[in-house]
């Protein structure tokens, strides 16, 4: 399974686009456009608008997420921004501030 991993000490300032899964353990600023899954792991910091299929946030995300399938904010995850997805899961312990729109 092809995978893009942004390591912990990496800072990307720009746009990321792809057709495969993306795992962010570092810092991404800008914009993320994926056709697959996005996973922001613990320690990952994303300041971007995200457009993806699935999104799993265990790190910090500041920006809007638009998912075509599902967004999950797990415990320990922190999100500030709008969510737009048909399915949303916000786990206990997660931090979230923003709008939720499930009417895709």
């Amino acid at each position, binding site marked *: 399974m092809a995978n*893009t*991993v942004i390591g912990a*000490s*990496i800072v*990307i300032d720009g*746009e990321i686009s792809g057709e495969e899964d993306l795992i962010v353990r570092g810092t991404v600023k800008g914009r993320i456009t994926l056709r697959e899954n996005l996973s922001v792991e613990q320690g990952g910091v994303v300041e971007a608008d995200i457009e993806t299929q699935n999104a799993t946030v265990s790190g910090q995300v500041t920006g809007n997420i638009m998912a075509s399938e599902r967004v999950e904010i797990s415990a320990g995850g922190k999100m500030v921004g709008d969510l737009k997805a048909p399915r949303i899961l916000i786990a206990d312990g997660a931090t979230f501030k923003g709008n939720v729109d499930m009417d895709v």
Partner: protein
Amino acid sequence: MAEPTTIIGELTSVQGNIQGDEDLVVLGRVEGIVQIDRTLVIEPSGVVKADVSVRNVMINGVVVGNVTATESVHIAVDGKMVGDISAPRVVIADGAMFRGKVDMGDVEPVRAEPTQKPEQQPRRSPFARSIPQPARLAAAPPRRPPVEPASEPARRPLQNPPEDVKPAPTPSRKPANSPARPDEEAVKFPEPVTPEETRPLEPSAVPPPAKRRRTGRPPGSEPVPVEPPPPKPRIAVGKRRVSVRKKG
């Protein structure tokens, strides 16, 4: 313990700056600037259109941009690079493609040792026997070869002593000219009559037009070529006397 590695997957494209402190493997596309203090590996499917500053870089894919490495740059067999390399160690494998400059730091240019040339003999044609002959010809006024046919056959026989050559063309010109020359060199005055134009031996009505350019005269006004110029009038109108005669 595997070091953390960042992987840009084959279907991923990153446009922007990448900075970090860990290894980076690019299978996809990166555009922008890459600054990593570790090793950058560009796989065969990777395309990097960026200026790269890394420690080591191993290029198996395509790189368009300048690469600055603090340790080494390695372009492998299937690597292609267009751009400048600046690194202390550079390896380009056989089969790789590269276009650009390579700067490996201070490289002393190798100087070829000066070869000891054999003593140079003056080239002489096998026919030239009298060595002073060219010198004599230079002493004679070179500007206009003498028209007299008498001098030419005199010059041709090579055994002729040079005296035949010198007096034959311009015996009177010599005294007229020789004081003139130092004057010309010492003083640059617009001379009303230039020595080369007044040829006492050739009172031709048509002075050579080529000479006139030295005085810048219009073609219409021709100086009187007939009279030999005395030294004094050759000095400028302002009646200034300048080193006409050699003092002492």
